């Protein structure tokens, strides 16, 4: 208890704002709906999981007079039940639809968020063909008048399915069976993929398969698993051993920089690796999936290639808030940046905790 109280005092200077919640089940999903709500979903294997639409406490959305809003709680705006684990969830913009992916069973489920009640109901299924039972398809949404669901377990299975008609409107058409770790829609016709091997590519769906690609990272990466995110600053690619590469989309073959993030050991569950660019801060990104922390890095501090990168800020709330014993520390399952508030993040951990934190830039002058 002592350590927890000490950290609480320290947190007064580390964070502007800090909220900590206990969900009924841990989530691997944090998907925004506009900038006022997030979706979370459970991933337990033998019981019914909940999919929840949570609305942020009002004080986080108001611009002035924050002090007059006492409510600090999440509101459960909608909820639904899923029979299987949910590993990914995407909201289809401008609709009340969600697409989820999980296990067991290789298929995507489409859900509807009710308008006149607080229920989320499953409405349809999108079949995905994959023989290996332990793999699940990654998902990204092409939002347009006729939204399309981009999904795939491997490069060979990459498809875009029209949500309304369920007709396939695009296929990669390749036989390459490399496993995917992330998919990201970049524009009306472009998307980025990242394979578990670290192979990255930018694809234009109007052309026959000819992505701008990198070469898979060298053998030095030692069999780690990669994931990536494209931002306005470039592409950040993260490995399960802590290596972080910055790439220029115009020249994927030559990384701009490559650093080693301070992680005490490789990620115990590389599927939980996340790297995200800050939408409101020019040069910042966040990483998680190695332990109970989230690290915020400023990429302009990375002089060249190679070397240790010191994070600008490390969120330790998931272990220190309640003073857990070090061996009982949970694992951060996912994190996301607030779309509007520049230094606010949400992070979720395997102990079902969900934090909303606004970190103080240590470089800001007093």
């Amino acid at each position, binding site marked *: 208890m002592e350590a927890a109280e000490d950290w609480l005092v320290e947190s007064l200077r580390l964070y502007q704002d800090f909220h900590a919640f206990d969900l009924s089940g841990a989530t691997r999903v944090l998907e925004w709906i506009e900038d006022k709500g997030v979706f979370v979903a459970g991933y337990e294997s033998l019981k019914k999981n909940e999919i929840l639409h949570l609305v942020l406490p009002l004080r986080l959305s108001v611009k002035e007079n924050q002090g007059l809003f006492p409510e600090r709680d999440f509101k*459960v705006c909608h909820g639904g039940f899923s029979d299987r684990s949910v590993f990914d969830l995407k909201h289809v913009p401008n609709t009340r639809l969600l697409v989820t992916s999980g296990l067991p069973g290789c298929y995507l489920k489409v859900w509807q968020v009710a308008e006149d009640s607080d229920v989320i109901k499953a409405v349809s299924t999108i079949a995905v063909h994959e023989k290996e039972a332990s793999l699940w398809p990654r998902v990204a949404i092409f939002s347009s008048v006729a939204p399309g669901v981009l999904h795939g377990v491997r490069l060979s299975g990459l498809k875009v399915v029209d949500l309304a008609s369920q007709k396939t409107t695009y296929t990669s058409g390749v036989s390459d069976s490399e496993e995917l770790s992330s998919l990201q829609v970049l524009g009306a016709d472009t998307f980025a993929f990242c394979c578990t091997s670290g192979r990255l590519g930018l694809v234009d769906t109007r052309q026959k398969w000819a992505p701008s690609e990198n070469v898979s990272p060298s053998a030095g990466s030692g069999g780690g698993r990669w994931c990536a995110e494209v931002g306005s600053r470039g592409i950040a690619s993260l490995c399960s051993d802590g290596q972080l590469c910055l790439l220029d989309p115009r020249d994927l073959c030559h990384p701009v920089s490559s650093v080693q993030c301070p992680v005490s050991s490789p990620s115990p569950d590389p599927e939980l690796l996340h790297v995200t660019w800050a939408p409101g801060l020019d040069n910042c990104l966040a990483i998680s999936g190695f332990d109970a922390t989230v690290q915020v890095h400023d990429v302009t501090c990375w002089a060249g290639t190679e070397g240790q990168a010191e994070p600008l800020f490390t969120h330790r709330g998931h272990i220190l808030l309640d003073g857990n014993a070090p061996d009982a520390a949970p694992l951060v399952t996912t994190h996301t940046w607030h779309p509007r508030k520049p230094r606010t993040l949400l992070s979720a951990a395997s102990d079902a905790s969900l934090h909303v934190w606004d970190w103080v830039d240590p470089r800001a002058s007093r």
Partner: protein
Amino acid sequence: MGEGEGLAAPQPALPAGAGQDVGRSCILVSIAGKNVMLDCGMHMGFNDDRRFPDFSYITRNGRLTDFLDCVIISHFHLDHCGALPYFSEMVGYDGPIYMTHPTQAICPILLEDYRKVAVDKKGEANFFTSQMIKDCMKKVVAVHLHQTVQVDDELEIKAYYAGHVLGAAMFQIRVGAESVVYTGDYNMTPDRHLGAAWIDKCRPNLLITESTYATTIRDSKRCRERDFLKKVHETVERGGKVLIPVFALGRAQELCILLETFWERMNLKAPIYFSTGLTEKANHYYKLFITWTNQKIRKTFVQRNMFEFKHIKAFDRAFADNPGPMVVFATPGMLHAGQSLQIFRKWAGNEKNMVIMPGYCVQGTVGHKILSGQRKLEMEGRQLLEVKMQVEYMSFSAHADAKGIMQLVRQAEPESVLLVHGEAKKMEFLKQKIEQEFRVTCYMPANGETVTLPTSPCIPVGISLGLLKREMVQGLLPDAKKPRLLHGTLIMKDSNFRLVSSEQALKELGLAEHQLRFTCRVHLHDTRKEQETAMRVYSHLKSVLKDHCVQHLPDGSVTVESILIQAAAHSEDPGTKVLLVSWTYQDEELGSYLTALLKKGVPQAPSGGS
């Protein structure tokens, strides 16, 4: 409020409770013919009659005292007891009002405070008087936790610890085998001065729980505390003064303990003051009700006075003019009068200062105005006060959220759950969650709606030893999987139920048993004499009915068990014999079977007789 129609099954009616943050609680339950009113709250958002529950719902004609068996008040918050004096003295109720001892002690203080604000500050006319509050409290019967209180010879109630505020309780109402549990406001996580709510596996037919916060996921206590500490710390660091208006009891103790715990850690030297009126009153009540606080407080209290803090000192009004930073806890809580208002007026003009409002403020008070964003206030004598100090509204209320409600349902194991003060459309998901996890039915009535619950009460029936022995004699052992039919007579006398044998029942009632005998005629073609026909029948039945006792009596008749078969000559046709088969009512089954069997035909007896 809903209509109470006195159905046999528990049937709560649902009144009041408007918005999410303030509602008025007032629920009517009809259980096995008894009528109980749960809470009698005031709606703080209204200034007119809408703030009181509509008691005409209870009974259109007839006195409330005759209709209601008792009233139960869960805790001293005004949205649960604010309408009580109006109800008992102005509408009229003279029956018992049950509440815990702390609630009994504190209720009248809050009611009087509220009355003063309403009448003196806002000049309201149709309001209860101080005398009415006193008269109302005379009707109160105070109860202890876990004490079974007999309201009458059928209705009993029991209070359980609810956390939330000092003296708050959840109540179990029981009539015979049927029971309802009403939670009032409760909290499933302990705080620094109160414990968490707790109930045993009492398995009520119905659990009525507040669901105002049912669709929320609450921010952790540590983060709320952190926010408070941060605000105080920042203000004090820049040399400002922090005013925290509080009620005598409630959050004040919690916040004092919090500041005391952290002041040294944060290396702060600024003084913290607690206005004297507060200390005395608080000490008095906490001493009286020490069993209501949490374990840690009780331990500390034994060693020292609860309000002898290291860093917190008694306030003197002169200190308000001292330069430099300080923190002051002062009453009253809504800044409507007294010391807190005085201090506020002195400090409001400096933007370095801060006022932290820890709770809801009633309309018309300065607290309510500044929380609405008003920055220019008209004070007495038309003086204009410009508020430059920072205003912070913090919620420290301890209510159960979705997780807390699930925990309580898990503890009590009710058959059904009823959620009050929520909006049905916005709670469909929670309803499904509760129904799925606990396999119970979940109701969410709207204000004014009546919910009727069917129950299957267990009625214990004593079985007479004689009857039991007789059944056992049959030889077959009881088998839980194979129910056996038992014949007996149920005697209901003086609320006593007994199952006895029919003979015993007849004896007790002084009646003679009537014997019913049936006789059936079966025609048989046989030219021989009657005795030979009888013999033929006897041989046949003996061979066919191996499990039954078939006898040929000396007078020529045949018996199967207790059924008699006699052969007689047909009056007109010598070639036909008439078999008379007769049996008593008890042997109906066998008698019908025998008749049918004989009608199928009887083979010729082997020559030479049997």
